[in-house]
């Protein structure tokens, strides 16, 4: 395994932990034990692998971007998580958690969602497995991602607006945790990123290591047993990034996470505690959590998964920031040169490659194309006119 397990207290270095209300401590302990046991059980792994292959469509291919590479002077490879069922990498984690929840005897899933990708994936898994599903989504995000709200409802989930605070992803997490405090006996909190209290950052990472594992093998074939110079991905909570980083952590590949400038927890935050974890967090002088501002609802989050804080602090990964305008340009660039409309989230990673193309000249960069842009077309139509 290339990324180590967290410590017994759920820490990656100084980050992580389990800062939850007392009511949830036994549930987190139970979840940790159940995951540890299931992950070591070949029959669980086989069942999940079967679903990932036959239902989600794995393995996802790697696409070499010839026209884009020629335009940028950087060899760009895309790991096509956008081609998964439900349109993003989120399905990997959700199928794992739903299977685990069922194994634990839970009948109901509660989830938070930003752009709606995790909510759609959760609603999908719940439909597949005959479970109840309630998704909390910031009121602001429900407006900018109305199509995903409709999708979740079609799939049988209840979608509830989070009306407090910034009415975005951060507040949807608060509402999901409040729901879980009240329903913990029959409900599993299907958390959508490598964040939250232990064991979530570790467990969600493990469910996404399939991205890194496949990429490593695919790169070996494509690059004649060489590895890419750079592996990059967008970072909100950081699940797609940790998934692809996990395949290359033990190599010389440079790992680069790309945050939105308006939600750059690693770039602009200081250590803090919210949503059950200690991690870099954007906060004011007193420790009040600040509202993030990003064009991408999926990255509109003031915190980041604790393992990213750790990877940054030990220098194994570095974190860049891009602006909304750079993202809009990258969104159009990929559409025009490769016929691939990206989600706004992975467009962040492409925006960084494009901006730093002089420094990256001649290098091979593997980018995790974590989701497709269908959900963002309406928003972009308004922006581009």
């Amino acid at each position: 395994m290339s990324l180590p397990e967290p410590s017994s207290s759920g820490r990656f270095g100084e980050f992580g932990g389990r800062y939850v209300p007392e009511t949830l401590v036994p549930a987190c302990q139970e979840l940790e034990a159940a995951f540890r046991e299931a992950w070591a059980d070949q029959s669980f792994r086989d069942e999940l692998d079967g679903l990932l292959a036959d239902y989600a469509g794995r393995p996802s291919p790697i696409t070499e971007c010839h026209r884009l590479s020629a335009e940028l002077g950087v060899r760009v490879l895309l790991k096509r998580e956008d081609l998964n069922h439900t349109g993003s990498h989120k399905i990997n984690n959700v199928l794992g958690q739903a299977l685990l929840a069922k194994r634990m005897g839970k009948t109901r899933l509660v989830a938070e969602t930003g752009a709606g990708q995790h909510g759609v994936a959760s609603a999908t898994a719940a439909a597949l497995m005959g479970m109840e599903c309630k998704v909390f989504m910031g009121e602001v995000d429900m407006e900018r991602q109305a199509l995903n709200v409709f999708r979740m409802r079609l799939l049988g989930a209840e979608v509830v607006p989070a009306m407090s605070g910034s009415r975005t992803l951060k507040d949807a997490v608060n509402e999901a945790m409040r729901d879980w405090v009240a329903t913990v006996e029959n409900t599993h909190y299907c958390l959508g990123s490598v964040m939250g209290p232990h064991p979530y950052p570790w467990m969600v990472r493990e469910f996404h290591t399939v991205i890194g594992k496949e990429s490593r093998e695919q790169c070996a074939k494509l690059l004649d047993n060489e590895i890419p110079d750079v592996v990059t991905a967008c970072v909100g909570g950081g699940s797609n990034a940790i998934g692809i980083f996990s395949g290359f952590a033990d190599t010389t590949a440079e790992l680069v996470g790309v945050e939105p400038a308006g939600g750059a927890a690693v770039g602009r935050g200081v250590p803090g505690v919210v949503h059950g974890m200690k991690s870099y967090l954007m906060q004011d002088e007193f420790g009040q959590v600040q509202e993030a501002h990003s064009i991408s609802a999926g990255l509109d989050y003031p915190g980041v998964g604790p393992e990213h804080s750790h990877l940054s602090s030990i220098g194994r990964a570095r974190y860049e920031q891009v602006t909304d305008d750079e993202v809009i340009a990258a969104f159009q660039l990929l559409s025009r040169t490769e016929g691939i409309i990206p989600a706004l989230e992975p467009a962040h990673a492409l925006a960084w490659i494009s901006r730093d193309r002089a420094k990256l000249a001649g290098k091979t960069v593997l980018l995790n194309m974590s989701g497709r842009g269908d959900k963002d077309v309406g928003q972009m139509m308004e922006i581009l006119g």
Partner: protein
Amino acid sequence: MSPTLAEEGLTIPDAPSEPGEFERSLRATRESGRKLLVAYVTGGLHDEWPDVVRAVADAGADAIEIGIPFSDPVMDGPVIQEASELALRDGASPVTVLDTLRTIDAGVPLAVMTYYNLAFHMGHERFASLMYEAGVRAAILPDLPLEEVGPWATAADPAGIETVMLAAPTAPDDRLPRVVARSRGFVYAVGLLGVTGERDALAESSLVIARRLKAITDKPVLVGVGVSNGQQAAEVSQVADGCVIGSALMRRVVEGEGPAGAGAFIAEVRAALDAS
């Protein structure tokens, strides 16, 4: 090998064996035969909040929890969320709330209820000593469970701040004694599965958790979360030593009933407790 808790700096210090000032006061009241009533007031909500604190003390609260508003109160329901948001909008911060608190002579012991990040961000020692200087003697941090309390308690214990632990209905029998052993001031029994807020009826779970706790400790056991009026307070205090009232009080303040309305409500709860 995974590092031990000690190597991670997370050792949980034993609670001092002698009760602190806050707990001694509650014990003395209990011994006088009176049921304990702790009221929660959001600090910094409207300019009149010091008057709300005084009114509630005068109306018969035995101690008062001052809420220092936090941006993401995950253990709180809609009423305290709204109170916190309004207070933050009015510019409340740990410093303004504690500064104002110095000027309030409530005449009853004071606790602070807030979320851990405010203490972590300011630094444990500084936060604890600021609280002490403001007259606060106990702290309730609902997102800091037993396993994470070590670094904070290591600073708070010698600073004279008693850290109240929450005991939840979900805790297995082998966990409750450890939570109770680390709790100072009182033991905060969480009355139900859920966040703070008013409920139509007292949850059966609040009696169950109170019974489980009373069976293993002589520290004051107070039930909070879902205790909404005098009748429910009296009912739960048949088993527990008393209760904490928060949302029912703050709803009245948010709705504009002011210090007079807050005082009248607490007087009503006090009367129900005394009559039981």
